[in-house]
């Protein structure tokens, strides 16, 4: 990670784009087949370093499947076949020899429904760190505190770190899940509709949190909320169902997609007429 110079957007310099146009994780001709159907076909998508890339499109067009293939969670699904390439920092990560556990540490993932591990708040962060070989307790403690501060949860939970995580509210849980992932120092964050299971207030908090992570992490977020994509995304990828499987129909800078889409379907979707 020598080339990373995190750029922090500030209102002073006019906000985005803050990120470098340098694809950190990218797919090339990626397709995903289940035993009876194809989730998506021939997707070539760059996700630029330090940027937030929103992936939008109607239900069932393979957006979530795409995210799951990026950190090889698709390995867990029997009879699921991925073809094409995925490169992380220029290195192919689709091969059998790739250490998926190390890959998943570099490419973290947050799901729609925040599921805490059935432990205390502290152990939710501590356990994965220990499993990843962070031996020193003080080092783990420092990482835990930093991650919790990053997601703005530290002040809310610092007095009850040993209480069961299940007692947190939905929004807090989602932030805990993000903290859990951040504690592992990932390079890429994949977010699968992280706000859609939360109430509007919590959803706003989590959205702000994601926006605040811009520049430090390379972020891909699947969302159904076009307004949200418009608020936080630097780039937008539009998916559509064509011939029974998901296709990437348009990709570009957020401003361009929202203001002058090149595809008719995109224009219709953005305009709220379809999908």
């Amino acid at each position, binding site marked *: 990670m020598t080339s990373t110079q995190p750029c922090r957007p500030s209102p002073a310099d006019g906000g985005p784009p803050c990120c470098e146009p340098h694809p950190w994780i990218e797919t090339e001709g990626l397709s995903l087949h289940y035993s009876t159907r194809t989730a998506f076909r021939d997707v070539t998508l760059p996700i630029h370093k330090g940027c937030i890339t929103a992936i939008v499109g109607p239900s069932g067009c393979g957006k979530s499947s795409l995210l799951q293939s990026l950190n090889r969670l698709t390995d867990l699904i029997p009879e699921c076949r991925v073809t094409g390439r995925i490169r992380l920092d220029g290195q192919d990560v689709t091969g059998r*020899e790739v250490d*998926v556990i190390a890959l998943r540490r570099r490419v973290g993932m947050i799901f729609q429904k925040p599921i805490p591990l059935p432990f205390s708040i502290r152990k939710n962060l501590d356990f994965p760190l220990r499993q990843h070989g962070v031996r020193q307790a003080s080092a783990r403690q420092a990482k835990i505190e930093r991650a919790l501060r990053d997601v703005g949860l530290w002040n809310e939970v610092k007095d009850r770190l040993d209480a069961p995580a299940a007692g947190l509210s939905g929004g807090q849980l989602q932030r805990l899940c993000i903290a859990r992932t951040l504690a592992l120092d990932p390079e890429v964050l994949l977010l699968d509709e992280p706000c859609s299971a939360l109430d509007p207030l919590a959803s706003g908090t989590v959205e702000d949190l994601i926006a605040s992570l811009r520049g430090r992490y390379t972020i891909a977020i699947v969302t159904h909320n076009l307004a949200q994509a418009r608020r936080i995304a630097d780039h937008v990828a539009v998916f559509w169902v064509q011939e029974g499987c998901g296709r990437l129909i348009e990709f570009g800078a957020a401003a361009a997609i929202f203001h002058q889409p090149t595809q008719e379907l995109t224009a219709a979707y953005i305009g709220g007429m379809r999908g």
Partner: protein
Amino acid sequence: MSRSFGDTILIWALRACAAIAGAVVLLIGCFVLAESIPALASIGLTRFFSDASWHPTQGLYGLLPMLWGTLLATAGAVLLATPLGIAAGVFCNFYAPPPLAKIYRRILELLAGIPSVVYGFWGLMVLVPLIGRLQPPGPSLLAGILVLTLMTLPTIALTADAAIRSVPDDYRRAAAALGLSRFATVRRVILPVAKSGLLTGVILQVGRALGETMAILMVCGNQVQTPRSVFDPIRTLTANIALEMAYATGSHRGALFVSGLLLLGVIVCLVIVADRVAHRRVHV
């Protein structure tokens, strides 16, 4: 798929466990077969069915009377237990008030766990004298059938209950919408849909009844003969093994293993049939 080192070790350890667990049945088959082969070779398979009687010490190895005993006891028990068991399953799902159904299920589970030797003991104490008063001698095919019925009933009832419960509620609602009465719903809609589940349960219980030893051994009188009425004492293949294994040697011992092999073969066939039936779904 690449895995961490620990995962690789884990998987191989698990595979070893599974291989051992899967091999047990092969091991059983091989050893029972190996012990039967000398007897099969010296006596010949056909004589087990053509010899007039079972006098292994005098070189007579006819298994037929005992085979009849086994078959008749099983058939009788399954014929009695199946309607009762299905009735109990229907009762749990359609007739009993829910709290009662819950208790009923718990009782059935408990009964399914009562050891066969206890059923046998009770049959010996209570049923055999009762039958003896009706038609001496008492220990008889009938006693065996009744005890086996009791033993298989709880399990048939439980599998019937599960099969009926797994019928999607849509069928119930559709039947209710058509204005069918409760019994008509059960008979015309629910039971046909649950058929394959019911059948699987019954087939597996046939297997259990065929293989049952203790209860039969205790109440059937154990005389080697083809029964002419339900009041005749009989001996089943399993009881025969249990009785003679302790002192049998040479061809006699081999012959007992042959009957074990026979049982094993029948059970394997039943399990395969049950598997087929279970996967033939009425509704998709």
